[in-house]
């Protein structure tokens, strides 16, 4: 039924590039889109938060708990925690820079520091939960608070898992100065998690 110029089509074979274009890295494009989607997830939760915050008519802000006391958030402690998390973005960036300069040891050091700082953040956050004095069931506000911070905490945890996998790969010498897409994708994600936290801190704790 069909011929090539004179021959039947030969059984095809996988080709290494799959036709991917060089220059634009599909994995990083994918990660950026995924982050876009995550941003919208947080946007939906923030929407809920603001509806609850401004829907409560003739009430003071922060609203009152079941027992009549106002909700109180530890702004100072969380501020320090925020600095830790933001700092971890810079240590990660520094680690990547080392790798690009060919310094694998530097990358491993950077990853370790980042992971430890992220872990510290989570521990402080859990500690905060334990001492807040209200639960998600208290009022709509507390539900929104726990949902936002909880979702963020889960994202930090996922980020930590990704970074530890990268660390393991770094030990196995899988990353080179030019070939380190998983690491780059992981670091995009980590920066996103940090930026969301800064927003969250400003919108929920500070104002």
């Amino acid at each position, binding site marked *: *039924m*069909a*011929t*090539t*110029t*004179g*021959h039947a*089509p*030969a*059984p*095809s*074979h*996988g*080709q*290494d590039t*799959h*036709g*991917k*274009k060089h220059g*634009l*890295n*599909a994995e990083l*494009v*994918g990660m950026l*889109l*995924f982050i*876009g*989607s*995550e941003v*919208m*997830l947080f*946007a*939906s*939760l923030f*929407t*809920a938060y603001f*509806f*609850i915050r401004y*829907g*409560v008519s003739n*009430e003071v802000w922060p*609203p009152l708990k079941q027992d009549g006391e106002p909700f109180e958030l530890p702004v100072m402690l969380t501020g320090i925690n925020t600095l830790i998390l933001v700092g971890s973005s810079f240590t990660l960036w520094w680690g990547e820079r080392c790798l690009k300069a060919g310094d694998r040891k530097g990358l491993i050091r950077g990853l370790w520091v980042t992971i430890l700082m992220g872990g510290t953040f989570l521990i402080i956050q859990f500690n905060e939960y334990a001492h807040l004095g209200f639960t*998600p*069931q208290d*009022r*709509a*506000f*507390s*539900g*929104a608070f*726990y*949902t936002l911070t909880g979702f963020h905490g889960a994202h930090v945890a996922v980020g930590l898992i990704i970074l530890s*996998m990268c660390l*393991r*790969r770094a030990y*196995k010498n899988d990353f080179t100065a030019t070939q380190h897409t998983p690491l780059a994708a992981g670091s995009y994600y980590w920066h996103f998690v940090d930026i969301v936290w800064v927003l969250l801190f400003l919108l929920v704790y500070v104002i």
Partner: protein
Amino acid sequence: MSFWWRRAIVSAVVGVLFAFLLVFMLRAIFGLDPLWQGNVVATVAGLFGGLGFLYGIGCFDYWLTWAKGRPVSSEDHSFHGVSNWKQYFRINTDHKVIGIQYMAMTLFFMVCGGIMALLIRTELAAPGQQIVDGQAYNGLLSMHATLMIFVFAVPVFGGIANYVLPIMLGAKDMAFPRLNALSFWFLPVSGFLFLASTFTGMFGAAWTAYPPLASQGTAGQTLFELGVQFAGASSIATAINFLATIITMRAPGMTIWRMPILAWATGVTSVLVVFATPFIAGSQFLTMFDRVMGTHFFVPDQGGDVIMYQHIFWFYSHPAVYIMLLPGFGIISEVIATFARKPLFGYRAMAFSMVAIGVLGFGVWAHHMFVSGMAAWLRVPMMITTIIIAVPTGVKMWSWLATLWRGKIHMKAPMLWAMGFLFTFLIGGLSGVFNGIVPADIQLSDTYFITAHLHYVLYGGSVYTIFAGIYYWFPKATGKMLNERLSQWHFWLTFIGTQITFMPMHWQGLQGMPRRVADYDPRFAMINGIETIGSYMLGIATIIFFYNVVISLRKGDPAPWNPWRGRTLEWMVSSPPPLFNFDVIPQVVGGPYQYGIPDARHAVVFAPEQFGGELTEDTRYPVLVVANDTLTSQGLIDEIRSRNADGLWSFEFLVPVGDDDRAVAERRLATTLAILAGFGIAATGRVADGEVITVAGDEGKSRQPYEILVATLPTASSAWMRQDAVDRIRKRSGIATSHIVVRGDDARALTAASALPLTMIVATDAVGADALAAVVMARFDAQPARFTIICPLDLPQPRWGSESSEIRRQAGERMTATINALVSVGVQVQGEVMDDGPADALPLAIDAFTPTQILVAGVNGEAAALAGAANAAAGETPVEIVNLGAPAGSE
């Protein structure tokens, strides 16, 4: 059962058991009472069961291996392609297999949802209770809508786009084949969770699941919320994949303005999915937390807000409407351009209007909430944006119509669905404008008018377009043609069924019948009964479709590479395409819709390197050319040459003679075929006795050519057109028929651009003799050729004298007589009377005409004298002499 399914079921069960254990343990530790809480168990068990299934079926194997630090190869193709049908039931990373899996899965859910719809309609067939009570009715209604929206209309585009998009872009696969597999397998989990709710008490808060209604109810409602999450994850993963594919994997030369509109549609849809779907995820998380964790998002006296749910929900669900429609718009654009055989009208306007719809789609969500009690100031802005969004939609509508305008329309099954779409979607779009206008909507909200609107939009925009796509690409995907007759039955039953079922709902709604009710006022009895009958027609139509698929798969005609003569890349590979689509990445060289533009090409597909050259299909489709008077005309020959440049057709001539002379027709046909052969065009033909309409109509019907071309003289002077031949042939044969008009002088003139050999006839006194005409005719019958008759006159001096003029005039008359005699019997001939004697005239004439042969014809011995001059002037050209005997008119 295969290894993978055993593993999947085992790990799903393990996941569920683990969830039970986890919930009981945690509840025991925190001292919660009672230990068994249906909602909580359902959530956790659904989640872990689902993830367990995905793990077991193999979705995560590759990544887990990577995470464990073991070596993996991104070029691992062990799960790529299928060798038998059973492998469609396991994980696969080939986009073509996933596309088919997607289609089968979503159509399965469409059937489930359709059965629910038929049950709904049966219940509504008459007032009072027929088969279910109110509670069960709510369950049926919710299940119907949920299945149709979340696991049919939203994901189904993933099936078609998965199959064709990478091929259209000239890629070997999607950007992330393993993510692609995961997106697919999310779907059965989601659908299973919805369906499983039948056993936990069906969810009854409809597909919109508004709290506080959704905060009550059985554990089925929790399963709904979880199912939506899985479906959403599936959408997002596919969308990211499509976008990454479009952005990074286009073949060289495939600029964004050369992408088929389907690629644009998929891209815009994917952007909507990526940025809107998280909102429904958010809304379902919140209702789930209210149900499972005891938060108070939607409890007003605890500071919660129910309107907030609607805002978040519709911020997804309005864009979701476009997620369901835009891919359909893309499919329709492909189909209409191909079957109207015209470049898509306003390609860029089509692309931009889709982008505009995508952007505006984020700004209209609250038009679903005009009567909800939301902030009143939002109403008017939302009304305005809603009306504005009708503009880009109108641009698309007009562009499709303009593409059809004066196209050569082929009413094959895909095109029928496209036409059905235009009609149905137009009605849905117009009723949408009513819904978008606040004062009207306050009346229409929550009535059957809404039900009518939404089914017109979704049936037209989703079901019809998806079927257009299925009929269009089925031959490509399966290598089999669908049975055309059954396809037509399927379409017409569906089309009429849709109108009967949903058209009366407009009236019913205007009269005030509320939607989502199991019982109604008896005055609506009649109209509901009619609608129920219409819905059964839809059921029967669907059965015909599946029957058609089954028998066509088993014994349908094999599909050629390009059954519809499309121009996009998927038609330039075999049906079905090879494992990695292209051996060598193709080179794109032009736009995708240049139908009817001679020599335009979209892309070059290369053969494997070891062979070199291009990959082409050499199946040619017959085009039936019906002509008689216009045979050999330059107009007809040019038309056929330009069509032949497509490389897709073979030409079959049919010459109906009616009362005319058959021998003449034969001669003209022979000339035409010879001329075409000279251009390397393979054509055949036959002369048929009988009238044009019967002969051509019947030949079209029995031969089933791709198209019929009828060539005639201008309508005023054509006997065929006086009988309205073109339209009547189209009717009688059922084949697309087009009309070529040839000017009268063109029809009789010598075909200028022609490779036929030219014979020069040199004659003086013989011109005008019957014998000369007879000789030429005999020569012509032996071998088609063109003839030029040269009559060199040895005029007496002075040449301007009256004697010379008289000789010249007589020679001219004789020449005209001979030429007319020859042309009227179909010989290609022209002639010239020259003012010089043979010795002076012939060198000039030979130089001007460069004949391949010279024939000297003389009467009464003058031939010898002429031959002397001819031989002297001829050079290499062979000269032949015929003696004709007595001179003309000397009796």
